């Protein structure tokens, strides 16, 4: 995450907003996400079919006017499943990043403000970072049992260290600043300092990290489902759909491909937006 640490000391406000609006790639990502979010919210209206409706007579069909993206091995309409799947994937992303953000910032602030808590928290983060995130997630899923909710928790815990480190370092740097010292001398409580100075100052990098983490979280959850540790059938989760379709790639590669492309598009959108936000909030990189 070295690219992110540069996003320190932003000048938020209209400058960033203007820069972001001028970033066509980021805007494309944001627009695409908006469409996806709308589709997800109104999935029952938008989707042409019931995503779990089994119809053996119509199974394994290639794309056609009736089924724009074809059907899977149970004759379920793949387009409808992908539209409903958007709900699931976006929810997974939001909840797991929410877990990471909530836990991570809290721990980061504690570590940054209370010397005694710093070592244990930092050490715990080192431990969490000392094995691959996916292995950690798998171990957590193994402990809690497979399932969509547990997958969110597992992915969420995996994102905690990045948020902790980010908040901790900005808390550390800000608490030593003169104006903070001055505020403290005037009797401001830790809470006030956190709310008034630390959080606003960490906001920009947190937004960037959050957006990019959404991409990573959605991808990680899809991988968990692909490995059979996440969503359960007949839930139209994209990773699970790709996993179900992999047995048919010889004759019907579209079954695994369309859900994979859906993952690709969402992750790409978040990456575009995240990149755009970083560029907008960190003018240093933009000469």
């Amino acid at each position, binding site marked *: 995450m070295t690219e992110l640490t540069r996003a320190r000391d932003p000048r938020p406000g209209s400058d960033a907003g203007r820069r972001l609006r001028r970033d066509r790639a980021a805007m494309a990502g944001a627009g695409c996400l908006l469409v996806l979010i709308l589709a997800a919210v109104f999935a029952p209206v938008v989707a042409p079919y019931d995503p779990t409706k089994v119809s053996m007579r119509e199974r394994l069909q290639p794309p056609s006017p009736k089924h724009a993206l074809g059907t899977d091995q149970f004759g379920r309409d793949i387009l409808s499943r992908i539209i409903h799947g958007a709900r699931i994937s976006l929810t997974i992303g939001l909840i797991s990043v929410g877990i990471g953000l909530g836990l991570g910032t809290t721990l980061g602030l504690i570590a940054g403000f209370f010397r005694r808590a710093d070592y244990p928290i930092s050490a715990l983060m080192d431990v969490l970072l000392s*094995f691959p995130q*996916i*292995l950690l997630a798998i171990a*957590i899923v193994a402990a809690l049992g497979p399932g969509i909710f547990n997958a969110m928790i597992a992915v969420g815990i995996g994102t905690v260290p990045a948020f902790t480190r980010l908040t901790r370092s900005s808390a550390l740097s800000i608490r030593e600043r003169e104006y903070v010292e001055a505020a403290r001398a005037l009797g401001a409580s830790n809470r006030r300092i956190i709310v008034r100075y630390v959080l606003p100052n960490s906001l920009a990098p947190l937004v960037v990290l959050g957006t990019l983490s959404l991409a990573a979280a959605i991808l990680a959850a899809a*991988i968990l489902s692909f490995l059979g540790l996440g969503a359960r059938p007949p839930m139209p989760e994209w*990773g699970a759909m790709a996993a179900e379709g*992999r047995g048919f790639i010889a004759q019907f590669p579209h079954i695994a*491909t369309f859900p994979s492309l859906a993952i690709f598009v969402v992750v790409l959108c978040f990456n575009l937006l995240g990149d755009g936000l970083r560029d907008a909030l960190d003018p240093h990189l933009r000469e």
Partner: protein
Amino acid sequence: MPVYVARRVLLTIPTVLGTSILVFLILHLAPGDPATIVAGPTAPPDVVANIRTQLGLDQPVLVQYWRYLSHALQGDLGRSMLTQRAVSEEVAVAFLNTFELVIAARIWSLLVAIPIGVVAAVKRRSIFDKLSMVAALLGLSLPIFWIGLMAIWLFAFTLGWLPVSGRGGPLWTLDGLRHLVLPALTLGGIQVPALARLTRSSVLEALSQDYVRTARAKGLAERLVVAKHALGNALLPVVTIIGLQFAGLLGGAVVTETIFSWPGLGRLAVTAILTRDFPLVQGTILVAAVTFVTINLLVDLLYAVLDPRIKYA
């Protein structure tokens, strides 16, 4: 410097210890009785009880952990509950397989990514820069399992060229090499975008440094500026990333090894977790963590050697 090295080495111990405790706790909170799994579906209760005693699972968790730790320090990681094989042997074999895969993937991804990143940075805003960075962004967002599936579909099913599963044989045999190609391509492939982007931004940063501007101002040829000044400094963060991304590489190896049935550490860990083979999970994750921590350590030390600006007490 020696003090720094010693301190740095000592600091890895709590991390490794913490990792082992964390994994131990996670697994002991897990539902599912390992003795039942070992005994198999048809075993009567007395057999299960017998096995539980044999495995020491009737002891308190703390006792189990202490026993495990003291044995581990002597190089004995216990025996797999399912196969009764020494965990150290199973992990060693898997480790070598993963090592081959990861190194092959890393080498080819670097060979592709670094030139792309350097050229993109030097020819900033050129068509090449834009195209390669768009491609990198696209690549960054692709799910690895789909790349693997498509590689299988293309090279094995459509063309019938390459085997798609298993280790095949030792690395130096033709079979071993042939089996390595597709997994290494897949695993390396997903690394290229991130590496290329990183190289590019590192080189860009280096090019904007004062001494590079000075060199340019002195009228040095651009190629020389890039080669002599920018590249050397730009590679420093790349070295870090090579180390850091090993975690990502090992993570990618889990999926790659699953799709290609590669008998490596990632697949071993997944199998062990899913079968609740406690000693084996402990062993694999411990070895993965130690490897990772060691690589981090080496990267830090390398950094210290390479970067004269950093002073170490």
